[in-house]
């Protein structure tokens, strides 16, 4: 029985952990869990993201993180993540910047218990020399050199999905399968999954091709409908454009950012209250029709 509440599952993330965080600019972030971690006052976390968005900005604004491993941080149309950017410029967050193939190579090596995997990306850039986890390597067969990317094993992976059973078998609806769901939970030591809906195993058996994670890889399942809000979670709902704009405005200064988090992260007692605070049923219905993007 892996069903847990948000606070119970958040206890699987400890101060100092390296956290692989599902995210893609304005998509698919496990935001309910991110809010819970901020409320719980986690400190000194590291993040691993392919492309971090508002989740990264919030965790920077709340002082929860001190390092970031990934390829980019951006909210796409809503601009750069200002609190993250300032934290890096002030030296409070250290960045290990990787190309997408280098990040995937590091995670896949971690998942496959290999010491490294190679890529041909990054050759010629300044990103290799400054990174002790990347080494130029000669091809033993006489071909061109490659960049060896050292195995990365996050302490925990945070994932949002469409449904799971109580044994931790996780299923996705047909939609984009980003690298997060494909590799992060396989590389990480622990896996926490929030889902739109907990279902019986029989529901999963109807579409075994849509199961993306076997239960034995998953440590906790939390039911959190609309759990990716304000990011999108296709096909269920779109990103919340208005909410992103409000954050982008608040994030311009530390004070307004803190007020924003107080209102939307700290004040709501639980996930249901948060959903009320961001607009309740009418707003969610509009997002469900992809009308609020």
């Amino acid at each position, binding site marked *: 029985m892996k069903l847990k509440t948000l606070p119970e599952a958040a206890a699987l993330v400890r101060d100092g952990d390296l956290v692989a965080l599902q995210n893609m600019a304005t998509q698919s972030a496990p935001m309910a869990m991110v809010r819970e971690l901020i409320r719980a006052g986690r400190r000194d976390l590291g993040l691993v993201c392919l492309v971090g968005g508002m989740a990264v900005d919030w965790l920077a604004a709340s002082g929860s993180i001190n390092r970031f491993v990934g390829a980019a941080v*951006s909210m796409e149309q809503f601009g750069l993540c200002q609190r993250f*950017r300032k934290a890096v410029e002030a030296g409070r967050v250290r960045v290990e910047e990787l*190309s997408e193939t280098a990040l995937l190579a590091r995670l896949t090596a971690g998942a496959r218990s290999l010491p490294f995997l190679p890529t041909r990306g990054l050759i010629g850039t300044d990103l290799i020399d400054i990174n002790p986890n990347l080494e130029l390597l000669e091809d033993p067969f006489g071909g061109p050199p490659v960049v060896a990317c050292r195995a990365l094993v996050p302490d925990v992976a945070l994932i949002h999905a469409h449904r799971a059973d109580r044994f931790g078998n996780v299923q996705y609806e047909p939609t*984009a399968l980003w690298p997060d769901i494909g590799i992060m939970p396989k590389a990480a030591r622990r896996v926490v999954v929030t889902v739109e809906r907990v279902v019986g195993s029989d529901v999963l058996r109807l579409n075994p091709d849509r199961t993306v994670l076997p239960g034995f890889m998953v440590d906790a399942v939390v039911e959190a409908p609309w759990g990716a809000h304000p990011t999108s979670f296709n096909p269920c709902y779109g990103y919340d454009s208005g909410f992103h704009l409000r954050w982008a405005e608040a994030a311009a200064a530390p004070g307004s950012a803190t007020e924003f988090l107080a209102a939307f992260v700290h004040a709501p007692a639980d996930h249901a209250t948060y959903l009320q605070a961001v607009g309740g049923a009418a707003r969610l219905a509009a997002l469900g029709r992809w009308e609020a993007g």
Partner: protein
Amino acid sequence: MSVPGWEKSPPARDYSVDELMVAVLAGCFRPGDQVCNGMASFLPVSAIRLAKLTHAPDLVWLAGAVGLEPRPGPVPASTLEAPLWRNSLMYVEQCGDFWTMVLNGRFLSKFCVGAAQLDRFGNANNSVIGGDFHSPRVRLPGTAGMGDMGSIGKLLYYWNPDHSQRSLVRKVDFVSCAGYLSGGRQRSDLGLEGGPELVVTNLAVLDFHPDSKHMRLRSVHPGVSVEEVQSATGFELLLPDGGEVPQTPPPTQAQVDAIRTVIDPHGMRRREFRRMRQRAAGGPKAG
């Protein structure tokens, strides 16, 4: 599926520079090419769709790097989110399949890149400006896919809606996308194929000298002088052989109509121009 009469359409009289840039980028794609797009890539997405509606109907588009050949509506507010890739033929899995396709030398050979800084040898920077890497003056979004695309043999098409000494610099503060490095044969000596082909800005079209790999003015847009381009550039530009700088052909009326009525009626392609005016640094993101 082509725009009727596109081959014989006259030059447009009424067009804006974003539409000209879309038309120039569209001309980079050939029938039989495959192309994907990254985040906040409104000009490239408009250009891909324009090419498919005119000279390259069988150009294969992997929308948002996810959806193969969607039946697209108007360009949406995000070039990565689901509205871009609804009704696709295939959802490409990102962890394995997408990068396998891209890394394979035979597919997806062209990529459009936007970056905060670009230098005279076509190196791009989307990482940090000023200071050192770990305490930068400005933290940019990050290399994302361009750190790969620059090194794995792709042909790079840079777009830049803000041709200025801030964005076109003598030497980038940090190389997060490999262009021709220090120029000449340095790139090919490292075993890297492909490289920067073209730079399409709001003032001009530029390419790279075949030997020195130094950036070169190919054409200036109607109404823009060579001097204006040079003074908005942070290094001395080479001129075409013979020294004569032609004018960039304006888009045709059919192209402009297609952009305005079919492809991007909501004007998403102009977003980056607005954003450019608002900020001192930080550039559009490449996928």
